[in-house]
């Protein structure tokens, strides 16, 4: 947990301001006092409570805390003191402590002056007016005990203690409740960095009948009010801002940076991108950032057909053109957004900058661009143009198309929060014939690691060399079955003597895939650490079901109870992680730069 910041002298003003009462407060107080004095309070209740909350890391603490206060965890022996402090409800405290709730208490001269309940996970807590709070997450709950000046001084102590002694991994918020009338308490909390989380109007008619009481709540920023009966729990809303607000903080794609061979970094806004040293790095052509030479055309459809599709897409829209020019299966492959379903597992904040390598038709880059700022790199000119048309027609303002081959694209180092390499690593060695495929793949991974920002991650999906589909005879990247199972020299010989299309393209068998252990070795060599690994049961192009290599998760994902002994035995075997590691169809890895390697990259960047 981050150490809380220390605020200046503002907090003191907050604690000491006794007369800072606005017109609304006066009105409110007036109504309350009228109700109290006339005795109407017995019949009509009308109050406003404010639920306030803060994340521990956002807490601002006063520079100096009150003297003589002692803060420690309360045990069963302190129940008497608790009861004295909170007399009417005191009898519940023992039960609550027994229910695994913890209490942190502040003591002044041997007398308890305040305490905090620490509650983890979903729980219900009684309110002071007969309802229940439904807590939907770990939080530390502070009762409104701080109206006495003595206790006010104790409150920051409690927070400071909690911030320094994190109550547990699930505790994410500190939450409190104040009455609107108690402005002093409210201001004091605001000075500590609290924000109003929800407002609660309590309204009751007929004081002797609890059944008639109704509560009206509204979360901060929410439009709707919610009614609560006497028995219905009042759910506390989340403290985190809504997703839209966070997506508004997209990282700008205009300031995508290139790095010249001379070490200078260049922006990509100009039409022609030329370094001071005279080197021309690339140009912007019709929205596509062209860097380096284009890769010769290859793709699922012939080049002529692709040209016709592009011409059609410009006039009638890419979707219509794709429907007419592509087969039904390929159309679904291009348009289906489920290809980016792995996004559910990427630990990325909305608005992060993502690099998609080998973007192709944009089936992954386009869905991702709704949440992140995506740079899509594609080597083939025609595909890059198609992607740009798709971007323009779908209004994807957070997508930037770059035409070029990753190894030759001079992107500046350390600028991407995530890199997507979906089915790319195995093809990396095709165009670099003189060097061994392993060497090229290793260099490719090294390049990816260099492009990562500190704390960034790589999502890499690829086939298993000995995967179940391969064992069953489905075609390898060579276009022939079983070539990945063969020793590499034998596979090379088979490919050299075959007439299948992909073998002609893939002369010398350069599309190496590996076993699970082989990948780990390759990653280690490139300075990458595997954070999580999954098996994509339906292939990495349909990552809708991704099972982590963990026993409990495998059981959860394959939880059907089979009939018959043999099938049951097969199921039992299927639940073993080593089986999935050995013959799982496709792997997906979440990789991060190793610490030592990360430091080396930082040093290199600094040097540059």
């Amino acid at each position, binding site marked *: 947990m981050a150490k809380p910041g220390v605020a200046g002298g503002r907090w003191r003003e907050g604690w000491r301001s006794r007369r800072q009462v606005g017109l609304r407060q006066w009105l409110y107080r007036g109504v309350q006092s009228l109700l109290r004095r006339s005795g109407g309070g017995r019949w009509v209740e009308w109050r406003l409570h404010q639920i306030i909350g803060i994340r521990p890391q956002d807490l601002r603490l006063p520079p100096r805390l009150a003297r003589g206060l002692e803060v420690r965890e309360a045990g069963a022996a302190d129940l008497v003191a608790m009861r004295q402090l909170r007399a009417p409800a005191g009898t519940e405290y023992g039960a609550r402590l027994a229910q695994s709730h913890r209490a942190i208490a502040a003591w002044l001269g041997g007398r308890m002056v305040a305490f905090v309940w620490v509650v983890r996970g*979903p729980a*219900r807590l009684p309110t002071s007016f007969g309802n229940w709070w*439904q807590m*939907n*997450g*770990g939080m530390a709950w502070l009762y409104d005990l701080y109206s006495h000046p003595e206790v006010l001084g104790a409150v920051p102590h409690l927070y400071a203690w909690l911030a320094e002694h994190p109550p547990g*991994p*699930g505790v*994410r918020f500190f939450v409190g409740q104040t009455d609107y009338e108690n402005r002093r308490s409210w201001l004091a909390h605001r000075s500590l960095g609290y924000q109003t989380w929800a407002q609660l109007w309590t309204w009751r008619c007929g004081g002797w009948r609890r059944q008639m009481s109704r509560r009206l709540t509204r979360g901060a920023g929410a439009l709707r009010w919610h009614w609560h*009966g006497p*028995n*219905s*729990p009042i*759910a506390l809303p*989340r403290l*985190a801002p*809504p*997703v*839209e607000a*966070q997506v508004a903080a997209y990282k700008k794609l205009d300031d995508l940076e290139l790095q010249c061979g001379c070490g200078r970094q260049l922006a990509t806004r100009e039409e022609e991108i030329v370094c001071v040293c005279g080197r021309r790095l690339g140009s912007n052509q019709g929205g596509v950032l062209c860097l380096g030479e284009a890769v010769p055309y290859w793709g699922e459809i012939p080049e002529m057909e692709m040209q016709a599709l592009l011409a059609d897409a410009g006039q009638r829209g890419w979707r219509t053109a794709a429907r007419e020019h592509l087969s039904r299966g390929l159309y679904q492959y291009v348009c289906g957004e489920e290809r980016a*379903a*792995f*996004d*559910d*597992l*990427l*630990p*990325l*904040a*909305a608005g992060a900058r993502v690099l998609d390598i080998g973007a192709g038709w944009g089936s992954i880059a386009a869905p991702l661009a*709704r949440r992140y700022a995506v740079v899509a790199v594609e080597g083939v000119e025609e595909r890059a143009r198609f992607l740009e048309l798709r971007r323009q027609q779908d209004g994807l303002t957070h997508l930037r198309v770059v035409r070029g081959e990753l190894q030759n694209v001079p992107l500046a180092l350390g600028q991407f929060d995530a890199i997507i390499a979906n089915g790319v690593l195995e093809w990396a060695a095709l165009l670099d014939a003189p060097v061994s495929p392993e060497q090229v793949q290793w260099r490719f991974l090294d390049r990816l690691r260099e492009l990562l920002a500190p704390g960034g991650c790589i999502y890499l999906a690829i086939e298993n060399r000995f995967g179940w589909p391969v064992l069953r005879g489905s075609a390898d990247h060579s276009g022939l079955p079983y070539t990945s199972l063969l020793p590499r020299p034998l596979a090379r010989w088979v490919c050299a003597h075959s007439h299948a299309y992909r073998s002609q393209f893939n002369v010398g068998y350069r599309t190496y895939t590996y076993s699970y252990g082989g990948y780990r070795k390759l990653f280690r060599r490139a300075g990458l650490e595997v*954070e*999580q690994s*999954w098996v994509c049961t339906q292939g990495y192009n349909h*990552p*809708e*079901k*991704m*099972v*982590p290599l*963990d*026993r*409990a*998760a495998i059981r*959860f*994902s394959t*939880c*059907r*109870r089979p*009939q018959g002994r043999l099938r049951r035995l097969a199921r039992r075997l299927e639940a073993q992680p080593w089986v999935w590691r050995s013959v799982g169809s496709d792997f997906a890895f979440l990789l991060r730069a190793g610490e030592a390697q990360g430091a080396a990259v930082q040093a290199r960047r600094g040097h540059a």
Partner: protein
Amino acid sequence: MHELVREWSTAGGAGAILARLPMDQGGLTAAFAPGRGGSRLLWLAKTVRGEAACARLRAERLALERLAPLAESLGLPRVLAGHESGHGEAAEACLLQTAVEGKPMRVDWHAAAGRAPLPREMMAAGDWLRRFQRLCRERPELKPGLSLAELGRLVQSRLAAAPEPAGALLAPLLAQLDDAAGAAECIPIHGDFWAGNLIRSGRRGEIGVVDWSGFGPGSALDDLLTFMASLPCRTSDGAGTRLQGWRQLWFEPGRAQQYLRVWAAEAEYGPAQARFAFYLFLARRLGWEMGLDLQARNRAERAAAHAHWTATLAWLRQNRFPDPFTISSPA
């Protein structure tokens, strides 16, 4: 990754192990906490896109929040957090809930078993349903405050504008709903009470129930009928249609029919009321299978449902809309 999932998966410092499973118009993310004795399932997050899917998730969230007081005793998940954003096609919703540990129930039973004892799973599901209905009756705030006749009228008004193939199928079923017979009070029902939504755990096989997006008012027989309707429909020759399965379950003398009658008696339904509840169930089921309810259906599913219901209705019409609670054996 949805912000909510990110926030929860990184809450403890060390990242949780995440698995992804497919779901209608979205995905289900399961988080596991790694530990020495093996990892442990922590929570589930449902993330969906599109207006209809968001509405379904919203319905589930509301249901779980209403049922929160019963969660512990009935083994229901609890809502941890939820979030919705956007409109129309761009709408996105995420619901985090506690996990119900165990495995989905599987019923190995031939619908044609006739006089054979009912499967243990059905008895266990029935016991759970009894407990659920009793607890709901005890809580006044859960009472829908609606009679079966009023519910029938609501269903009629909602399904009246159904597109043509479904509309023609629904009409004869809705015509069976006689308002005079629908005086009984509605009770809360699960709405999608099939074996896959029942999670069994522990040695004693305690049942937890998930997927509450169909929660709403209904008759006391609705959930049981849903359970029966979704049983595997293999007949004794091994190749039966669903209609054959339903006929053998409901309209031929046997343990299943007896069990249904016992339920009707326990709910204090007279013959007319039980018939009303049965045909109301059939009408709602048809709407649900044809995608007229919150659950969206693709073209193939709709076509399969259309074929099944055409055959079912032809048989029902031929037998003058029989009643499982009074007849012994129709033609």
